[in-house]
């Protein structure tokens, strides 16, 4: 069990009388791309919100790198190295692209006010490091030329990429992507596909992915979990999932 990065057990989320998620298990190992799929309204995003600390799950456990994180607030979970994106892009729209990336490095930033007022060498060095890291990731996602553009003025696909870059500058261990391909054209989806694989292979991080684009999911996932109406339906490799009659039934209905 030691090489499990994230272990979610028996996760349950109840909103009043509505049982949104019931007994979902997830396991993400190091350097793995794991996908969560399911029909609309199946509770995938709720699982994400529970794991990343935006909801407090009713029951179950969320263990990340050997630490129990259930019920911890979102910003502390992010500091543990688990960072997420959102289904509807959430950038700081009126700030520039580079500022978005600087804000994201807040937890690595120099917070001593006096050092900042007098611009000590340590403070300057810290700022420069943050700028360099931001520049590095902007180049990786092909947005370097837009560095001083306001984030809200970028095209939709660029905003998606910026959101991923913004997560990456925090140097996470686990990146959680909530429908990253939604609204992208086929070319952009292909580029995203390559980027995600690169993140795993070159940066050595794990990725937990919610996605509807089956081509993307089946192509890159190491492990897939299927959720249907809040209940876990199946788990396995892409090949296993594609052959699973329950999954086919959930997606296409019975004959």
């Amino acid at each position, binding site marked *: 069990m030691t090489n499990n990065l994230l272990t979610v057990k028996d996760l349950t989320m109840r909103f009043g009388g509505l049982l949104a998620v019931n007994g979902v298990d997830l396991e993400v190992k190091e350097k793995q791309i794991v996908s969560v799929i399911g029909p609309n309204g199946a509770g995938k995003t709720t699982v994400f919100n529970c794991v990343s600390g935006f909801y407090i799950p009713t029951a179950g456990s969320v263990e990340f790198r050997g630490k129990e994180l259930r019920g911890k607030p979102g910003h502390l979970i992010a500091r543990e190295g688990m960072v997420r994106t959102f289904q509807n892009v959430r950038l700081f729209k009126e*700030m520039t692209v580079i*500022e978005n990336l600087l*804000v994201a490095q*807040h937890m690595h930033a120099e917070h001593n006010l006096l050092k900042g007022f007098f611009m000590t060498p340590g403070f300057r060095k810290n700022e420069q490091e943050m700028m360099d890291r931001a520049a590095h990731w902007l180049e990786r996602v092909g947005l370097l030329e837009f*560095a001083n553009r306001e984030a809200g003025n970028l095209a939709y696909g660029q905003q998606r990429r910026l959101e991923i870059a913004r997560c990456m500058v925090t140097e996470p261990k686990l990146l959680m992507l909530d429908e990253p391909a939604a609204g992208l054209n086929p070319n952009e989806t292909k580029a995203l596909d390559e980027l995600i694989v690169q993140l795993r292979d070159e940066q050595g991080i794990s990725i937990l992915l919610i996605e509807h684009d089956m081509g993307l999911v089946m192509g890159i996932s190491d492990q897939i979990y299927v959720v249907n109406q809040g209940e876990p339906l199946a788990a396995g490799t892409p090949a296993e999932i594609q052959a699973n009659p329950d999954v086919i039934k959930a997606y296409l209905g019975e004959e």
Partner: protein
Amino acid sequence: MSRVTSAFVAALITLVLGGFLLGMSLTSEGINLVVETSTTGKMTVLFVGVVLVFLLQLFREQVGSFTSKMRSDERMELPSFLRTSQQQRMWTMFVIAGLVLFPFISSRGAVDIATLTLIYVMLGLGLNVVVGLAGLLDLGYVGFYAVGAYSYALLNMYFGVSFWVALPIAGGLAALFGFLLGFPVLRLRGDYLAIVTLGFGEIIRILLNNWTELTGGPNGIARIPKPTFFGLEFNRRPSEEGATTFHDFFGIGYSSEYKVMFLYLMALVLVLITLYVIRRLIRMPIGRAWEALREDEIACRSLGLNPTTIKLGAFTIGASFAGFAGSFFAARQGFISPESFTFIESAIILAIVVLGGMGSQLGVILAAIAMTVLPELAREFDEYRMLLFGLMMVLMMIWRPQGLLPMKRPHLELKRD
């Protein structure tokens, strides 16, 4: 509705509303009040106004196309000769030098107004942190101003603390109050936050008004000493045995103008410090976090930023500037009472921030000047001040909703390797 009818209706509405406001007046006759029609002068104003409204409505499209042309150049850019940072620095130096020389070449009255303006600049800059940068609508900012003013007045009255010692304490106490207010309002946003902060400002004022044993209640506190210049007083005669006055020390004749100049220069120094500190804050992680929080709190949390500490930071730092301004205000006036800290003050400071352009420092300075100097210049229109104030706000919202000088995003150079 045709254009002529709509213009006619608009003119009629103006006539009815204006007729009551301008055309009639109440005069006392014995013990009774009687309604009288106003002087012909006011009637002319009313008539001109009605005609103006009629014409504006009639030629609305032409006027509209003109204003939309004005609106098309969305951002007022600074003149191009200020582009390089070196030239910018030179101009800044030039302006500061001019401001330092100002009291020596102008009248006492002008210096007095300038000092008042500087106080509002400071308040505007401080509130700009909370409202403009962190996006937390604070309608009770005057509460912190009051805390600062009363801190100095009370410390001096009971413990004889001098201005220079009281200044940091006043800032600290205001910051503490900002921090304390921050806690209950952490979960609130928008309108709800505005209401609670409004209440807070009123609580402070009412407390000062009613705690008569400590604060003197509505009578206020009088005879608050002026700041000293390294221990030198600006009075004609030393206030106590052994003290030296400014003119004696330098062997010059007594003039009450020295005091006015000194207060102006002090306010200028305080404003320059405030400007520098906030300018630095904006370029530091905490300043960026404030803006990020204004943009999207959920995204902030997902990136490991703690909204609680960031909000408390904004409230605390913003309040401390009001504290400094407050203690300076108390020292300058020599007399303070709860009357000076009514809601209208909060509204004026907020108007300065909105008028100047949220988050923009230069804009706030310009707006503070406009909001304090214009009413002084137009003293004869005193009665219509609120009317003009409202008109200005409405026009601003139509033509420049982003403020006089909207905040410009800092351009950050990336070193390519």
